[in-house]
């Protein structure tokens, strides 16, 4: 991971002092709630249903064991002994006290962490592929570019009060594991042979989820890397000046891109960029090398080739290890190594929640098995990116003892869910009990593996923190005359290619949702061409009608006892 130098540290320390002073003035009645709100939000502090919620930045999802121990300490000292990993690769504390937040920030700063710009109408945490730096299909190590963007976006003076929040995702591999078409800006590394330089970025704008889900538009196929900051600055300036501010539901850049049309928007950005290009913010090789050199790299041992097959044969009498290996162990570019996902989706535990004791145990495991480093995934799991394959059986036993070896990565029970109505002030409906009820219904592992790859995502409201739009099956909590209902979509996909799911029909009561999922799965198993055809591919091939029919009966005679659809 990137190690701060003195300047990086000073900036974070000065932020703690600034926020301490702002909090003091607020508590003394000298800074009104209206004036304080945007300031505290830009420090990740929400006022929630039960208590404030503090969102800690985990820039592009990397975390050291030392940092994780500090998060455990904070969870114990300032919270109720746990934290929640979010779909934005951040960590949320649900029970801190407002007056303690400056102290929490000071603790974070002592391990090179902060909560800067984790909320508010500003540039948020940059996210990326959780297999960056180790993936076999890597084009470039996206972490370096994320850090360059992190520094550029931190306290950017021009873009602190945008029309709305702004999310940038970077993908550095062939496969898009960063959902770049579903962000305000998506950056996709591209190598172009014969070009000088040969490294650049495909620029995608105007994607997003939320109330109005949209797939982003490519406005430039190849931007040479040194222009990255000036180009992104041109996009932000056009958005800051012209994005809508009259209606918060129309204030994201995706609406501006849609209203102007992608071509006209691109022309405006290009015209602005013509004025900025080759200016002082043009990146230099020296800066890229400097940032690269501050990343601590694993010192791999030369392992020759992958020992994975002989290992699995040796303990092949334990099929659950094989299942785990199949689902939770991922290929690595370094021979003899693998990346391992720790599932935070054990049935009965809210998705993404981790206790202080688990955090400390995980930190110890990271030290012993993976160079003291972890990644947080947008699916709310953790990844040990650099595990020796001959250590996998031992690691598996330890993870199993901690309840972190559920072999469900990529499967239906690896549910993404926001904290929902149990915690969040914005939510229309609960998410966690719905996730748990589905997990309980699908607790047969053989059946789960037979169903194959399936992303099931649950959001408690249209803000779509649970990414329901891109779930192969998406569940959205809606409010109808004060009652909690759930709208179901199918066919969403987070990348390659990205797609927004379609609503199958009228919404359901909470207790009906697992039954609906079961009917959808039944229809899929009857319709798939082979075991290789995933649920989402099957939906795209045959359309949503057969699935609607499986749930509602014949499409021309809908069940009469259902509530009408919620728009």
């Amino acid at each position, binding site marked *: 991971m990137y190690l701060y130098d003195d*300047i990086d540290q000073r*900036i974070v320390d000065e932020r703690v002092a600034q926020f301490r002073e702002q909090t003091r003035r607020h508590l003394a009645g000298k800074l009104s709630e209206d*004036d304080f709100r945007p300031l505290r939000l830009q420090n990740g502090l929400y006022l929630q249903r039960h208590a404030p919620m503090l969102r800690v930045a985990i820039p592009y999802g990397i975390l050291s064991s030392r940092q994780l121990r500090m998060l455990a300490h904070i969870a114990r000292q300032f919270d109720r002994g746990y934290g929640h990993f979010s779909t934005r690769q951040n960590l949320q504390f649900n029970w801190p006290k407002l007056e303690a937040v400056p102290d929490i920030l000071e603790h974070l700063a002592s391990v090179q962490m902060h909560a800067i710009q984790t909320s508010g109408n500003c540039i948020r945490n940059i996210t990326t592929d959780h297999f960056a730096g180790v993936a076999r299909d890597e084009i470039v190590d996206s972490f370096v570019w994320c850090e360059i963007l992190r520094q*550029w976006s931190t306290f950017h*003076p021009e873009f602190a009060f945008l029309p709305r929040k702004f999310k940038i995702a970077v993908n550095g591999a062939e496969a898009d594991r960063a959902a770049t078409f579903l962000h305000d800006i998506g950056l996709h590394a591209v190598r172009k042979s014969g070009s000088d330089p040969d490294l650049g970025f495909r620029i995608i704008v105007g994607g997003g989820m939320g109330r109005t889900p949209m797939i982003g538009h490519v406005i430039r196929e190849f931007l040479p890397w040194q222009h990255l900051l000036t180009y992104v600055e041109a996009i932000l300036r056009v958005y*800051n000046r012209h994005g809508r501010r009259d209606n918060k539901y129309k204030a994201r850049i995706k609406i501006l891109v849609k209203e102007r049309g992608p071509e006209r928007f691109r022309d405006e950005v290009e015209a602005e960029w013509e004025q900025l290009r080759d200016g*002082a*913010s043009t990146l230099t090789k020296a800066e890229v090398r400097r940032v690269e050199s501050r990343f601590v790299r694993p010192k791999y041992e030369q392992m020759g080739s992958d020992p994975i097959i002989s290992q699995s044969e040796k303990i092949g009498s334990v099929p659950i290890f094989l299942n785990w290996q199949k689902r939770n162990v991922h290929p690595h570019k370094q021979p003899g190594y693998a990346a391992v996902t720790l599932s935070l989706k054990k049935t009965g535990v809210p998705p993404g929640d981790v206790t202080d004791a688990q955090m400390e145990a995980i930190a110890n495991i990271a030290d012993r098995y993976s160079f003291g480093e972890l990644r947080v995934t947008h699916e709310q799991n953790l990844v040990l990116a650099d595990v020796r394959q001959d250590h996998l059986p031992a690691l598996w036993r330890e993870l199993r003892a901690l309840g972190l070896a559920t072999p469900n990565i990529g499967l239906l029970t690896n549910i993404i869910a926001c904290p929902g109505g149990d915690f969040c002030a914005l939510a229309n409906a609960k998410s966690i009990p719905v996730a748990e009820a589905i997990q309980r219904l699908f607790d047969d592992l053989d059946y789960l593996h037979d169903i194959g790859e399936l992303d099931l995502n649950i959001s408690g409201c249209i803000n779509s923190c649970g990414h329901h739009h891109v779930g192969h099956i998406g569940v959205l909590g809606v409010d109808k005359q004060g009652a909690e209902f759930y709208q179901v979509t199918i066919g969403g996909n987070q990348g390659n290619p990205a797609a927004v799911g379609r609503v199958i029909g009228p919404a359901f009561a909470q207790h009906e949702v697992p039954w609906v999922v079961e009917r959808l799965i039944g229809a899929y198993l009857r319709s798939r061409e082979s075991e290789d055809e995933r649920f989402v591919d099957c939906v795209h091939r045959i359309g949503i009608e057969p699935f609607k029919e499986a749930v509602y009966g014949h499409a021309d005679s809908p069940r009469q006892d259902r509530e009408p659809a919620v728009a």
Partner: protein
Amino acid sequence: MATLIRRGRIENPPSPEPGEVLRLEPADDPAAVAHRLGGAARVEVNFPSFTDGRGYSIARLLRERHGYRGELRAVGDVQRDQLFYLARCGFDAYLLRDGDDAGAALSAFSDFSEAYQASVERPQPLFRRR
């Protein structure tokens, strides 16, 4: 009574000045007044609400694209906690909102001792000075 901070000093009440004042609202295009900048005694950029950040882009455009060097004054909902960003975007005068403590507000200019980006105040980004 609102207090003016100008070039690091408090003026209360603000001293009157002769000359043409150009006032820009958030939706205004600085390019449209570029030809008048030479004759202006000062340019005011209005912030109807401090959360409306368009004035920051306007300031940078006035300074960096249109070469305006005279007084650039932030007016409207201007508060202490925005002064650091405003200064970096090229403002050098701030008409603080009624009731704000201008003496205490002066410390906001030194909230941070360093910044990563290029700005009007410091045209070279940190990475070119590191």
